[in-house]
């Protein structure tokens, strides 16, 4: 496997974990989040900081997950208190607060981020396969959740919170669970990214990144695991396949967001499903 293919697989794997984890929060449980990149960043910064102190890879990944998940649950607490539309703006705000904080911290490198991160100890190909393995695990986990008792409950919460509460679902617990799982997985993606890139910059985790992750979820079909899987791979490969697509990446993302939602709010998965019916 060439180094190019290995790096491509790494990027796809990281994006898959990000998109599938947001899909658990927004797709399964119906909680709109416009700040997913902040949790990606939390995982990355935690892992990078510990790695520079000499902590081994499994520990940094776990710490990144724990940090992102813990803050994610705190943010989830706001979802219990505020209305739906408020949540979109609040999560967007979390992203700006995270960036605004990191940029001003000298011990986190400020605007320049953290560089000189030690390697994973694995060669590029093995590390790419490790990322792919994690991505497959997240995919399997998503599929398992979807058909599990918890998945049905998420569905009920997403569909009609009050009705779910009436039939005895503890809505708060399930929302927090969705936020906890989704953000912890984003933290894992952040930790994996650290050893792949060996340098992290605050701007990697900005609002545009949050929207890019959301684009993958929405275009694939919010809530559809295979739809999100396919869309993430397609959208990640697009700039590699065509030079024009790389130059106009944002323009294409924006146009796709707009057109897909305007004409098929169920995303690509919605298009596929509509045919047989």
């Amino acid at each position, binding site marked *: 496997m060439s180094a190019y293919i290995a790096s491509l697989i790494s990027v796809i794997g990281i994006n898959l974990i990000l998109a599938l984890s947001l899909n658990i929060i927004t797709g399964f449980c119906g909680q709109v989040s416009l700040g997913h990149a902040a949790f990606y960043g939390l995982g990355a910064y935690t892992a990078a900081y510990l790695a520079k102190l000499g902590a081994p890879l499994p520990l940094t990944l776990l710490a990144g997950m724990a940090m992102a998940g813990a803050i994610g649950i705190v943010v989830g607490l706001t979802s219990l208190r505020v209305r739906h539309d408020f949540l979109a703006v609040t999560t967007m705000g979390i992203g700006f607060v995270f960036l605004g904080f990191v940029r001003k911290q000298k011990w986190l490198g400020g605007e320049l981020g953290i560089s000189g991160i030690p390697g994973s100890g694995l060669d590029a190909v093995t590390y790419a396969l490790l990322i792919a393995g994690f991505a497959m695990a997240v995919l399997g986990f998503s599929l398992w959740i979807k058909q599990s008792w918890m998945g049905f409950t998420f569905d009920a919460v997403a569909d009609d919170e009050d009705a779910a509460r009436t039939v005895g679902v503890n809505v708060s617990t399930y929302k927090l669970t969705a936020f906890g799982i989704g953000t912890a997985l984003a933290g894992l993606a952040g930790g994996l990214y650290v050893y792949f890139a060996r340098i992290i910059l605050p701007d990697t985790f900005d609002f545009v990144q949050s929207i890019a992750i*959301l684009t993958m979820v929405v275009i694939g079909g919010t809530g559809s695991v295979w739809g999100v899987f396919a869309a993430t791979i397609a959208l990640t490969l697009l700039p590699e396949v065509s030079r024009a697509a790389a130059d106009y990446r944002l323009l294409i993302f*924006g146009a796709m*967001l707009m057109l897909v939602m305007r004409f098929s709010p169920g995303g690509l998965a919605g298009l596929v499903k509509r045919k047989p019916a």
Partner: protein
Amino acid sequence: MLFVELIVKGLVYGCMYAMMAVGLTLVYGLLRILHIAHAGVFALGAYMTVTVANATGSLALGFLVATAVSAVAGTAIYRLAYQPILHHAAFVPMVVSIGLFIVMQEGFRLIFGAYGIAFDTNPWYVANVSLAGISLTYVEIAMVIMSVVLLVGFGLFAGLTRAGIGWRATVTDPQMATSFGVDPVRVRYVNFLFGSALAGIAGGLVGLLNNYVEPTMGGAVSYKALAIIVLGGLGSVRGTLIASLVLGVVEAFGAIYLADIFDRDAIGFLFLIVVLMVRPQGLLGRG
């Protein structure tokens, strides 16, 4: 003295936020859409002002064109992007709006270039007056006067005229208003026309204030405007106005006293999150 100066500067920014946020809050009150593409209209207004002013040498003409183009663009956004999907969950129009905003931002980058445009002549940018030791540029004063005049005008329109009363009735209860003979579709058009015109003028003024117009200039302002309408209690115009001024002042102080911990853009949202923890319905919203 610094204390007073920060309050004054904060209020100037608050006036700018108010012009942006009122349009957003009107759209939300009427249609329950988080109209993020409003930021695109704001940047469009700035570009129209700067290109027309630089081409003709007349700033007034620039603002006139900016107002008209922004109003038409905003109305077109409603007609083409929102109207067909109003029956979907609120999430759907919001994502469309985000997509549209990104497309507009990238469109400006392609058409006008990534590096931004400055005004050829911008005498108000440097000319300033000193009031009790606080120096304000003419642009800042114009910003305050413009926003007060426009918003008071809007208040009189909404409070006193027949069309304004019909508008408020539609926001409160669309069905009842319709049965009293108000055309809800026309109200929506007026809504987008007015809100977008305000955003366009605000864009032009911010362009003058920074003497610089760039593709991403809508971003930070519009995200803050979203925070403001949530702070004010979504859909409440009075709450929005108060929240705009409060946020302007909080930011001015935060940018000085919290400079080592957070950057300016984070302060508004930090304030929002703190307020929402205490009052989840916003400052003036009803539970």
